């Protein structure tokens, strides 16, 4: 028997396609090769291992489906009314599809456990501010009075006026947030960070503006947004979907003539860029070609995703994610480029995984981690 025949038989057995005779034969063969046991057992376990299913996506889709049937006058009570005219309903469906995408986010891919946001409704008269903040290591979802939803990443703060939504929709962000903004043409939604101001009508995007980071990043998922940089309020940058604007923070605060003009562009060239006295670039979002997810917003799904990032960049993210302090003592190690995803890993598991790729040692003392060669 050739090795190919072995694999044909074995895969038939796993798939429930093997006859009793074939199964018995395979069994006797495996028994006479104890060195195969481990692999055979693992392959069988792997075959049986089913990934957990995301039921919330199904629930949302079901809701949309039933709504659509209702719109097509197809009653679930058993009376046939009208047959499907599939082309006519495409437009409506598109709208509902997006509503579903938003609902999916709201439906709680997150457990309540991670919600540590505290809402302080009364900062008394003067400011009349609402403030929502997250500690390092935790995340939170907030629904604003206008229905817009904001996911706050670890160690972030969102503030807005008590009269939010009455005349304007304006918020202040420190840290990172994913925004899904409801449409309201009359009242643009404005996000202020220390270095930029973003104006939107209705769209979804991610803003990363941690004060300790060198850069502020704005990643657009859909719709369009208008960004102005603090020291140049007259220049407006329009982002289109799948683009990411990166602004160097310290530069954004400098006076307008103190820095030589310089524009960097990422892997797409943009000639229509306004000339701005700051270091900035527009890049394409980092898509994962396998499942077409966007790296920039995976934190919303409880995933810490890094694509072609240096170890020191990753370390900053890990500090927030795990609420730890990471000190990389060796420059060369810090410059190693990495790709990957952390999901359910603990900090120790994450470090061990990284060790497979970069030769380093670490010492962990409480929440302090020192990394050296």
């Amino acid at each position, binding site marked *: 028997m050739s090795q190919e025949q072995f*694999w044909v038989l074995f895969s038939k057995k796993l798939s429930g396609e093997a006859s009793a005779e074939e199964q018995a034969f395979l069994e006797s063969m495996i028994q006479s090769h104890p060195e195969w046991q481990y692999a055979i057992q693992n*392959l069988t376990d792997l075959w049986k291992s089913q*990934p957990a299913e995301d039921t919330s996506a199904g629930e949302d*889709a079901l809701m949309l489906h039933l709504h659509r049937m209702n719109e097509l006058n197809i009653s679930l009570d058993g009376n046939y009314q009208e047959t499907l005219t599939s082309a006519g309903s495409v437009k409506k469906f598109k709208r509902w599809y997006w509503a579903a995408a938003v609902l999916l986010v709201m439906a709680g891919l997150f457990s309540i456990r991670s919600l540590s946001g505290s809402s302080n409704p009364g900062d008394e008269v003067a400011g009349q501010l609402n403030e929502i903040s997250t500690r390092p290591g935790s995340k939170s979802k907030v629904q604003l009075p206008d229905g817009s939803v904001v996911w706050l990443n670890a160690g972030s703060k969102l503030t807005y006026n008590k009269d939010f939504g009455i005349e304007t929709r304006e918020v202040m962000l420190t840290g990172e947030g994913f925004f899904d903004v409801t449409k309201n043409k009359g009242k643009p939604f404005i996000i202020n960070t220390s270095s930029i101001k973003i104006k939107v009508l209705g769209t979804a995007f991610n803003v990363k503006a941690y004060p300790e980071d060198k850069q502020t990043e704005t990643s657009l998922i859909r719709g369009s947004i208008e960004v102005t940089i603090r020291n140049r309020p007259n220049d407006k940058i329009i982002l289109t979907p799948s683009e990411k604007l990166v602004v160097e923070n310290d530069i954004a605060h400098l006076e307008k003539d103190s820095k030589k003009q310089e524009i960097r562009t990422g892997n797409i060239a943009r000639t229509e860029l306004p000339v701005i006295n700051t270091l900035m670039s527009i890049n394409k979002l980092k898509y994962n070609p396998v499942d077409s997810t966007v790296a920039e917003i995976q934190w919303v799904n409880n995933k810490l995703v890094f694509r072609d990032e240096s170890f020191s960049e990753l370390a900053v993210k890990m500090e927030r994610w795990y609420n730890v302090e990471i000190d990389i003592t060796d420059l060369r190690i810090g410059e190693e480029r990495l790709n990957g995803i952390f999901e359910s890993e603990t900090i120790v598991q994450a470090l061990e995984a990284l060790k497979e790729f970069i030769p380093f040692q670490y010492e962990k003392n409480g929440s302090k981690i020192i990394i050296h060669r």
Partner: protein
Amino acid sequence: MPENDPIKRLLAAIAFANDQAAYKELFMLLHGRLKQFAYSILKSQEEAEELVSDLFIRVWEKRDQLTSIESPLFYFYTTAKNLAFNRLKQQKRQQNPSPEEWLVQLNSIYFDPEQLMMTEEMMRQIRQAINNLPPRCRIIFKLVKEDGLKYKEVAELLQLSVKTIEAQMAIALRRLGKCMHLEIKELNISTPATKKS
């Protein structure tokens, strides 16, 4: 992995009692996989979602006829394929793309590491091996392992021979076995009668 028997029971409840709960349960059971299957052909999440909705409208409207189907799973996948091909035709996009051209997402890379007695490195290699399966092998592996179709059904759905399905499944498993250092050398054992050819 879905099986035909529970699906048959649900279809019967829908047909004979207009059971809405059964209809919803069936939708929940199959929505994710059918959407992925439709996506592989249509390459658009939005259209795949709509196709599944179309398909389930059809299920409701034809519920009286669906109780006599031998393999409902096979029915769902063939109908999904036909609906997808019709759409491509209507949109004047590529006609009847062959399985090699489908964009297949494999959920098998998301196995639960807790259940497996393997090193991290091995699991990484397995994910990589799954991700790197050649196009035709991917769709076959998915339909058999993740969607629970029989070899014969996969062969008919993809218009290939059953021998091809056997061979492609063997390739997939051999590659996974390799990650676990299982390499079968030529063996001096006689083949059972059924395998002689």
